[in-house]
């Protein structure tokens, strides 16, 4: 494991915009969790309903066989054909995928079905319940989805998260990179970069993946932009990374100084791999939004570089950083130029 520790834990007075964004996101999560509790439980009950999902899968399979094949990816058409042909073990999975097809979901009233009419009526009735839950769920009202792709959603989605783990991951990286970046481009600059990266991330997502009935939520596109801009502005400067090789031996844990672009490469490769390696129909992590945010951060960096040939670096304080105070026994290895002396002077890990 290797993890960037840039400025350590920056005091809120030194990075007010970052901390405000973090707290605002936390408040939104608290609000959406409370407001959407009943709707969330209702949606989870529906998702657990095997009969409903199987019925939806069978109906969707028949719908796919009647629709224009070129509108849908091949594997979906093939899956529909298998379910239609009697492979009902896949009907539930197809039923899950059907939620992302807005055209299908909106056509439920006018749809005809040649099969189990009891299941068909049950499905229609439950779908009305699902719509009710979605209308009451903050992720759907504030997230970016095909039902309402207005511009307000392109900004509001940034502050909505699907759960505490999702929020924690995004806010951790916002604190690491946002606080460091804010000390370079000031609070207003950081806020602009954050919002602009988020909006552009949504744009790239809409272009490459497509907006569906499942909402896009999360600040990861915006955070990717912040991270990319920081790496661009500090391209060759050595930054501190914490490493751990999972074993309790000397030299298997410590700090290492690597150029800032290493973080961008690791993050970029991860997102690119995710984009190339996952089926967009399955949902999950919106890698295209991450890539969009990173590209936006890099673009902003290029613009700033073009406008000002040299960007002054805010001097780091001489007092030891909190991470250094917490782990004084850990060796620090430098690869390339090091900004300060190592603790022990040793080259060995």
């Amino acid at each position, binding site marked *: 494991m*290797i993890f960037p520790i840039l400025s350590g834990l920056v005091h809120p007075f030194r990075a007010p915009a970052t901390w405000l964004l973090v707290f605002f996101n936390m408040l939104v999560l608290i609000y959406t969790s409370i407001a959407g509790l009943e709707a969330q439980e209702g949606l989870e009950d529906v998702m657990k309903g095997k*009969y409903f999902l199987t019925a939806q899968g*069978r109906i969707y399979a028949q719908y796919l066989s009647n629709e224009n094949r070129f509108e849908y990816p091949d*594997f979906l058409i*093939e*899956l529909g054909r*298998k379910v239609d*042909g*009697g*492979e*009902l*073990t*896949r009907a539930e*999975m197809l039923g899950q995928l059907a939620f992302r097809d807005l055209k299908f979901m909106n056509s439920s009233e006018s749809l005809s079905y040649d*099969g*189990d*009419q*009891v299941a068909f*009526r*049950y499905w229609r009735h439950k779908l009305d319940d699902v719509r009710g839950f979605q209308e009451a769920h903050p992720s759907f009202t504030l997230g970016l989805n095909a039902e309402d792709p207005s511009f307000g959603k392109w900004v509001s989605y940034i502050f909505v998260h699907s759960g505490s783990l999702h929020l924690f991951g995004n806010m951790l990286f916002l604190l690491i990179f946002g606080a460091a970046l804010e000390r370079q481009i000031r609070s207003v600059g950081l806020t602009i970069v954050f919002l602009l990266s988020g909006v552009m991330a949504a744009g790239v997502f809409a272009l490459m993946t497509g907006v569906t009935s499942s909402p896009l939520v999360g600040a990861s596109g915006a955070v990717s932009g912040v991270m990319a801009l920081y790496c661009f502005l500090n391209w060759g400067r050595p930054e501190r990374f914490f490493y751990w*090789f*999972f*074993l309790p*031996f*000397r*030299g*298997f844990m410590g700090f290492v100084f690597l150029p800032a672009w290493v973080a961008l490469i*690791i993050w970029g*490769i*991860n997102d*690119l*791999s*995710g*984009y*190339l*390696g*996952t*089926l967009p129909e*399955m949902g999950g992590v919106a890698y295209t939004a991450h890539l969009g945010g990173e590209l936006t951060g890099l673009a902003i960096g290029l613009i700033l570089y073009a406008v000002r040939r040299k960007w002054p670096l805010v001097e780091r304080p001489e007092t030891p950083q909190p991470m250094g105070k917490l782990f004084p026994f850990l060796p620090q*290895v430098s*690869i390339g130029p090091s900004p300060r002396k190592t603790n022990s002077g040793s*080259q*060995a*890990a």
Partner: protein
Amino acid sequence: MVISNWTPPDLSNSPAENRLVTTEPELSLARPLDRLAAAIIDIFILLVPLYILLSAPLKKWMMTSFILGSEPDFVVTILAMFFLAVMILVGYQSVCHHFYGATIGKRIYDLRVVPMFPGEKLVFWDHVLRSAIWVGELLCLGLPWLAVYSNPKRRPMHDRLCDTVVVTRAPSGVRGPLHWERSLVRTLFAALIGFMTLVVAIQIRGAIDKLKMEKSLAALVDRDLGDCEIVSSSVSEEDSDPHSRLKVAMTLYAAGLADRSCLESEVEGEIAKQIPVAPITYLAQAFIYADDAEISNSYLDEVCEMAPETVECSMSQLVTSWSDEDWSAVAEVLKAAPKGSGYMEVWGIRHYMKQAQYGNALTTLDGLLSNRELAEFSLVQRVKALFNFYKEPEAIAAFQQAVLSLPLEQGSDLSAWMCSQQLQNSCAAVSSPACAQALPDKAATEIDFEHTSQALAHVLALECKGGQGLDYMSFGEAVRDPDWQIFFAANANRTEDKKSSAELFAQLLRSEKAPELLRVEAARRWVALASPSQMQEVVESWLTFDSREGWVKIGNMLFSRLAEQKNAELALRVAQRLAADESLSPLAVKILAGITNDPDAVGERRPASNKAKEQIKQLLDSTLKREDGD
């Protein structure tokens, strides 16, 4: 960090030396943990992200094939991803070692891979071989690398086979392994070999057990594929009805010979064959989703909407009435329903047996004689109906025929039931064919109390053989079932504390969770034990007994006992209730007919004639009116 003009050290003449003296600064053997850390950096920090990127299209393909269930594609993608990983590892190590003497991870820790012998030059393919063997060691969970703690020059297999050694200039360099390091590795390998031998032995045994179960596994697989074996063996290939399999499955399910998963697989089979949905399909779905009332009721309603006046609609109405326990409505549906479906008749038989209408049950069973797939069900129900309808000779004949045809388990159950019923009437039944079948020579400790009929037959037989000398306390301590514990406790107190014994029997009679056979037996003993002043309580308990079959049996026992005690009022009230239900036993009729001195009085084990019944009814009515008038 590049070491220029560097000549390999001479290690051949000094195997015990830990310091390698050359014209260059001192070199020593690389520390094993440094080699491990270098490998971790190479793999996890450098190669894994690269691999994830390059294998992304394969991962997508793998996901697609998994969703579509395409096994060949799935296996191909797995193999391709594995091959890619091996290529990346071998390629990276080979190129780095050949051109730079070290990978990036090794360079960070100042390690070098050098030829073992002076003057030897390694070609590119030597490094490829070294890397390939290294990958092979990795696939063995890295265990061969433990040779760094046993080999004098700390050279695992990949170093020994390719004549290389990993050295360092860093002060962290080490000597050859110490004695304790070598011992530890050897002990570890010995323990590992022992563990693997044990695992292999367990796996072989498991495989042998699996082979023995092959037949039942195949049946399960068949069922999973929508081909219920019991239905397949019952359906005629000439039957052109597309729903014939489903109809047979419904009949077998009603008879308890097929389970819900069989129904489900037949319905899925119809969908797979794209057979149009019919009322029978909805009916089957109602049973499949019986646990969800909303869905099940929707299917039942749809059956009659789609096809009123059909047998399927009648079945739907029957199910609804049965769920509401509206037995008169069930009877109406059965009377009006079209015949010939199979499952309707089976449900009818189940209803008649439950309501103790054995005559109707026998008539319906006669209509199922031609259904061979229902033989198991029909034989058992016929024996029980005949016996409960006081046709014991016919029941015994049917039993002897049934036992020859039934599978072992069902035959044992039927024998045990028959034996326990006969023993309740008389201990002479110990030598009957049913008891001979049901009671093999078994010690009392081997009685299986999970099967109530078998356990009851055993206990009754022991009582018949041993008289009153049975050690009920020991039985009560040995048995785990709480109902049987109460039964034995009640019997233990029968002679010394009749009152508490009666209370325990009453408790068992009123317990709705206890098996019905045991409750009826408890009632029989309570009736025998109760004093005349306690009979009112017994009658009250009998009146609210939930099972019809048990109610009839207990009621007739009660009437006989009340007649013995000459408790005319209670006896006649009980008789009136039984007569209104047409459930008087021949013995009860005989007793009542004796009061009327009627020459048409019947024997104890034959049904009453209509004339006798009419006379008894008049007797009861007039007697009770006279008493009311008084």
